């Protein structure tokens, strides 16, 4: 049966299984070339193995919660959405969250995901207390910052290629409300946006949305959005009695694939103009509920279908601090002149990070979506080379199309990772379509 990631590109004929207990899972892993798949939210082929894709949906139970410290122990297939549903009403929120809540614990570990607070709190690794992994030998190994450290470090950000995450303990953060105080700043261009980020290191959350269709002086025109967890006293009066709860919203859903002409330069331009206008109108302070603040796209079920039958690809790179301004200019000007406007272009300042194979480094990360076609594929290759020229690298959880050559140029750490995997006999045991494509 064919399988793809959230971007619906590429589609790969894959042998799949969904074991229901540990013994069945172990037997499946011993077949080799295994990759674990959670909720399929990696954009490309990270969680697809033509020979042996293992769905982890039956390993989705919460095991223990320490109400004093806020530590949750859960199986790898538990959804972040379920963690929030269960623990936000008790005053706990994920310490680190990506832009969708429909990801699994195992997936967040494998991709070492980041959120809008990376500049302050780092990546997901920083809230993982320990992991239990099923390794190539078919054994369960517990690893943490103090136990089996090498395995722990490679597993975080290792894209599932060191073993299958079975269980993990993560640290939640105490909050006193379900609301975020959001402050929106308007940046006239990319340098201004960077300036605003550099002045906002104290903000808990920060992110910018960029209108990529602007050229010249207003290239990089953007809305920089800062956020803080609101105190219980600050929530809207009608919710003050239950500050940790918000009423459920109606979900929009995309019923079918949009024809590909729906997304063209004109409609994207109109969308961007509207978004910018709306942001300007709402500049200054606003109270936003957690769901709308962290997961705006989750409100539109199946939004990946708006890109039509051929699917879409996301480009996400990070550029080191010193070269960020220049590199971002080069990227934005390439995008604007290709006229391939992206619905969502997101810019984020990363803090310092020292890790074996995780994506973040101190600098700026830019993420954009493109519908898949010949022009955008060529554009993305061009963006790849601009990134490499400026010392940047790529987020594998988003990648679906990079060439092996480009990846190897961007990633001097790949060699060490491969030798580590060889030494642990993990190379034959675990593999994905992506690791095969990139020569990992």
């Amino acid at each position, binding site marked *: 049966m064919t399988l793809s990631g959230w971007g619906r590109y590429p589609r790969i004929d894959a042998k799949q299984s969904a074991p*229901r207990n540990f013994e069945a899972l172990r037997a499946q892993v011993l077949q080799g070339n295994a990759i674990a798949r959670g909720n399929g939210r990696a954009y490309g082929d990270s969680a697809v193995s033509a020979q042996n894709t293992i769905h982890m949906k039956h390993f989705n*139970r*919460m*095991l223990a919660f320490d109400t004093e410290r806020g530590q949750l122990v859960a199986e790898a297939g538990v959804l972040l959405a*379920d963690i929030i549903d*269960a623990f936000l009403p008790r005053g706990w929120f994920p310490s680190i969250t990506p832009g969708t809540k429909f990801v699994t614990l195992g997936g967040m570990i494998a991709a070492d995901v980041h959120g809008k607070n990376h500049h302050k709190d780092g990546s997901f690794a920083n809230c993982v207390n320990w992991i239990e992994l099923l390794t190539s030998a078919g054994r369960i190994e517990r690893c943490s910052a103090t136990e089996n450290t090498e395995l722990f470090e490679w597993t975080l950000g290792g894209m599932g290629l060191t073993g299958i995450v079975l269980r993990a303990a993560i640290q939640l953060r105490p909050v006193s409300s379900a609301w975020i105080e959001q402050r929106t700043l308007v940046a006239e261009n990319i340098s201004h946006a960077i300036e605003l980020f550099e002045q906002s290191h104290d903000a808990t959350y920060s992110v910018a949305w960029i209108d990529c269709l602007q050229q010249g002086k207003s290239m990089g025109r953007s809305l920089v959005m800062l956020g803080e967890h609101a105190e219980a006293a600050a929530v809207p009066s009608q919710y003050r009695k239950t500050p940790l709860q918000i009423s459920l919203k109606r979900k929009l859903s995309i019923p079918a694939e949009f024809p590909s002409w729906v997304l063209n330069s004109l409609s994207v331009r109109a969308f961007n103009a509207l978004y910018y206008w709306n942001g300007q109108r709402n500049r200054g302070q606003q109270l936003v509920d957690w769901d709308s603040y962290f997961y705006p796209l989750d409100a539109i079920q199946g939004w990946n279908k708006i890109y039509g039958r051929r699917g879409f690809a996301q480009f996400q790179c990070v550029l080191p601090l010193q070269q960020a301004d220049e590199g971002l200019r080069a990227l934005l000007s390439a995008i604007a002149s290709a006229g391939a406007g992206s619905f969502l272009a997101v810019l984020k300042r990363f803090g310092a990070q020292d890790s074996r194979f995780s994506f973040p480094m101190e600098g700026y990360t830019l993420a954009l979506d493109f519908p898949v076609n010949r022009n955008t594929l060529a554009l993305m290759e061009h963006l790849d080379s601009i990134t490499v020229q400026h010392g940047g690298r790529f987020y594998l959880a988003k990648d679906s199309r990079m060439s092996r050559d480009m990846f190897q140029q961007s990633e001097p750490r790949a060699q060490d990772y491969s030798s580590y995997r060889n030494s642990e006999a993990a190379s034959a045991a675990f593999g994905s379509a992506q690791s095969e494509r990139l020569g990992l």
Partner: protein
Amino acid sequence: MSKGTVLILGARSDIAMAAAHRFATGGYDIQLAARKADSLTTDKSDIELRYQVTVTLHEFDALDIASHNAFVEQLPALPEIAVCAVGYMGEQSENERDVQAASLVMRSNYEGPASILAVLANRFDERGSGCLVGISSVAGERGRATNYVYGSAKAGFTAFLSGLRNRLAKRGVHVITVLPGFVTTKMTEGMDLPAKLTAQPAKVANTVFNAVQKKQNIVYVKPIWQLIMMIIRNIPERVFKELRL
């Protein structure tokens, strides 16, 4: 604050587990009853953590009907609601050749479920309140060559539920017959099911939960099945016997 207690019979099935989650979401305490009940400890911790309700585990063998009285006796509390999701499909071809295999399917889908619900019905009747839910099947609506052993047992169970409902209607005890069509479960794993006719266990659980709240009598999980079964029931026998369904 607990809304009451729900007993889930045959708790290791996917539909049963989904029902446990659904009732726990609604604030009910849960009694999970199944064979090898201690294999459900992680499910117990999961449900307790997610919904902050109390879950207890109880050893229960639907086929051991002699034990059913004692089983109900030793429950920590007589539940307000009982959901019976016990069932076993078997292989039709094997059921045709092997009477032992056929008998197991019949006992699992009719004798066992009817026996435990009969015991519970009498307790609920004495108390003057309660709700019994039987997960039967559209397969019991008319016997077909491809699964009539399973279908006949479900037909018996459906008739039993109907009679029980009739008997208890004026006694404050409500009985619900649930007729799922295809459901994505362990039982149907590997079968090629048409997506439009197939429900997820969570959908079945939701139907059960709503039927209890609204005191419905007979519920189809997907409305399309009501239409399909109406057609199937109305095909004249001389035509029906020639069909391959």
